[in-house]
């Protein structure tokens, strides 16, 4: 019996976007995120060879082995995925850079690189798989863990957290979202929108570590997130290639966020209005949520008026890695001119 295989807009089956089998703990939030990455890249119809998957070190940073098996990737060193991505982006600006990192990777050892990649507006999707602990080194607290949160073993955490979304917004990042690994629909829409954004797109995804911090006193456990989080809006992603008459019009209020590639992220108003264009409103909302010991999820901030790191460079159209010798080495005639100038 032949089965109909569903193809995406570039006629590829989803299996073209999957990776090797995961070796993470069963139930780990990071595996859910990998699933969403596969889904989002497939549905957006991105040619797998055009994607570069980048990561640092950690359980989260291992996951590029488990998705997009037909894409090149680089599992770099702890906390320094952004710089490697920067170098790659400079010589090949045509690739879609998709980075995954952990909260240890990004909020501690790599916080400097995280900050500077945002400052440069590096054109990439930056996913933080945030579990509040260092999973791979067996469950020490990370810098994103909330004050009062407690992992499975040991004392509760006493230090205030670094909120990576707050940080990114403060630095002027043009796309900042927070989601939850278990919120498949929301995360998929946000991921697709991030892939459609030109410039740095940060998604901080709460991703429970089932082995070290999935007890209810841990603010990043499945149980806690289910009861203590609030969506800022409903999110629905509309592909630029999708006929508009196929798109449902929501009953309540909504707002469309126009994305770089022509796609739209539709934000449906839930209980309260939220202005994603105002960075100070986002900071205030995050602050209030922290006081209430709650997570807020959705598109926190969007703004498109910054050039990307590669646009800033004024580079030739052809990716630098594809230039031929005559573009890379000054000609012999030019060389003689230069030497004559030195000798004058």
């Amino acid at each position: 019996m032949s089965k109909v295989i569903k193809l995406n807009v570039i006629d590829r089956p989803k299996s073209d976007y999957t990776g090797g089998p995961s070796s993470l703990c069963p139930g780990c939030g990071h595996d859910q995120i990998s699933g969403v990455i596969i889904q989002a890249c497939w549905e957006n119809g991105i040619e797998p060879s055009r994607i570069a998957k980048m990561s640092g070190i950690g359980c989260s940073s291992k996951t590029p082995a488990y998705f997009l098996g037909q894409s090149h990737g680089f599992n770099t060193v702890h906390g320094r995925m952004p710089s490697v991505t920067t170098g790659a982006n400079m010589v090949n600006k045509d690739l879609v850079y998709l980075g995954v990192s952990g909260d240890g990777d990004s909020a501690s050892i790599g916080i400097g690189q995280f900050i500077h990649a945002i400052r440069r507006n590096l054109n990439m999707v930056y996913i933080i798989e945030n579990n509040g602990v260092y999973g791979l080194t067996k469950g020490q607290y990370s810098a994103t863990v909330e004050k009062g949160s407690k992992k499975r073993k040991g004392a509760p955490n006493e230090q205030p957290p670094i909120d990576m979304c707050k940080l990114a917004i403060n630095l002027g990042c043009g796309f900042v979202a927070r989601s939850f690994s278990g919120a498949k629909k929301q995360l998929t829409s946000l991921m697709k929108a991030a892939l459609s954004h030109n410039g740095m797109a940060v998604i901080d995804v709460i991703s429970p570590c089932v082995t070290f911090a999935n007890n209810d006193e841990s603010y990043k456990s499945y149980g806690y997130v289910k009861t203590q989080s609030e969506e800022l809006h409903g999110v629905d992603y509309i592909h630029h290639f999708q006929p508009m008459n196929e798109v449902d019009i929501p009953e309540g209020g909504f707002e469309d966020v126009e994305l770089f590639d022509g796609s739209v992220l539709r934000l449906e108003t839930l209980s309260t209005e939220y202005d994603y264009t105002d960075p100070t409103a986002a900071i205030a909302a995050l602050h209030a949520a922290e006081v209430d010991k709650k997570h807020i999820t959705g598109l926190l901030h969007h703004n498109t008026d910054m050039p990307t790191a590669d646009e800033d460079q004024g580079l030739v159209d052809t990716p630098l890695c594809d230039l031929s010798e005559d573009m890379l080495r000054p000609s012999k005639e030019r060389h003689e001119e230069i030497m004559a100038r030195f000798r004058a």
Partner: protein
Amino acid sequence: MCIPEMDVSINDFVINVATANGTGSQSSNLILLNSMFEMGVPVSGKNLFPSNISGLPTWYIIRASDQGYQAPGDKTDIQVLMNADTWFKDIEKVESGSVIIFNENVKLPVERDDCLVFGLPMTKLARGINPKMAKMIANMYYVGVIQHLIGIDQVALEKAVNRQFKGKKSAVEVNLRAIEEGRKMAEEGITWDSPHAVEARQKKEGTFLIDGNEAAALGSIYGGVNMLSWYPITPSSSLAEGIIHWLPQLRETEDGMSTCAVVQAEDELAAAGMVLGAGWAGGRGMTCTSGPGISLMSEFIGLAYFAEVPGVIWDVNRVGPSTGLPTRTQQGDLNLLREASHGDTEHIVLIPGTVEECFEFGWRAFDYAERFQTLVFGFSDLDLGMNNWVCSGFEYPDEPIDRGKVVRSAEQMAAIENYGRYRDVDGDGIPYRTLPGSGLDPILYRGTGHDEDGIYSEDPEVYQKLMMRLKRKLFNARKHLPSPVIREETQKDVGIIYMGSMENSIQEIDDIIEETGLKVSQCRVRAVPLHPDIEAFIERHNRVIVLEINRDGQLYGVLRKELPINLVPKISSVAYSDGMPPRARIYADLILEVLKEGAQ
């Protein structure tokens, strides 16, 4: 006065100018250097500057030498005193019979009856020309005095002034006026005969002065650098700035689009990461730094070695350990570069000894990096990198760009039997690679253990085999790297093995030793891993000295490690470092001492 009688020495003297940092004396010193150079006098100039922007003592040493000696020289013949802070110490160091030129406005005495002394109120005179710039212009007066003393040709001088101020009319006029005033006052006021003079020589056709950093910058541009990442650090910053300066002229299309990105990184960790990213994506990435930066980059350096990612890093060595003497010179980073990072690692290090080689290794470094799929270091130092050297011109690259074993099409891929990213299909230790974006055999590069297909592996045999292949790859690289420069005597008494900027002192050292009747051959190492010719050189000589500018004998250590064990007893280490560019006498004496200890 009790001044010993002396013949006039022609083109054989040392000028030492003592000033404070930030007083603009560099222009005056370069004018002196350049005008002598214009006359065809073999000269070298060394800037001994402090780690400070303004106020601390600075010395500039100019040596004229018909023999072509470029080391700083053992003594000062003409001392210029401009700095109150070092005044008395500078006076004390001067030998009997030397010339002392001083700025009277410093208001300190010069009590040396045994010297030829001349003072001018330089600051006051300068104020008469331009009160705002008096501090700078004051320096031009000693140029005028020296011009008179040693007989610098006016045409050459004017050319040098024009060059220094890039033809800016007002600046050229003001400074020439001060120089002329100084010269005239010296003509009138100096009653004694100068013991030193310059005599014009046939200027070597086509030569010019340039520092090693600019030469390496140009070389990198000819090497097709696509991405420069850097974090400022003395003495490497001017290498990056050289690239930035030349890119618009040499690497932009007619419509002003660039073929090289420049990123000022947040630190050296990031700078190294960017180099790896560029190399991984198929571009030519480089960074330049000094010792502290290499220390920070080490983790990435190991990743590049293990994951086989090409890239270029220049280390312009300054004095370590730690922040050390940040504005002084040393060859103290060889060990660090050779084996940077944890675990078993080794790296290719190119060691230029001349500005011409800074240029050549600048472009070759990228070819080696892509050919051997590994990081390649350019190893220069402050002396070579920041001082001006006579250059005979840069030879246009005699080989096309070598992109190494990159599979770019499905046809190419099909022609390779049993492809695997880390499989040695050709038997030379170098595997093939594919680039992101190509869709050809994509893999996840990683710093973790991997098998021949790039898949994660902790298998003992897989790991061991991989490490042995990496070793083989670099061992095979030896014979492709720059071979040593050998100047050999027929009588094989003593061989000196040395590297890098020691080139500028070696001939003088050689001559001093040969005065004792020994014959000295020279072998300048230009790369590690060591070229097989070096081994042969040692075999041919009775005694071999390994000479270098550091404390521990790092090159000696490399030789001991890489040479066949039977050759090791033949080599002895002479290593010395005090932050100064190597003064020939010190090293020659140390060598003679070691030779006296007899063969072991």
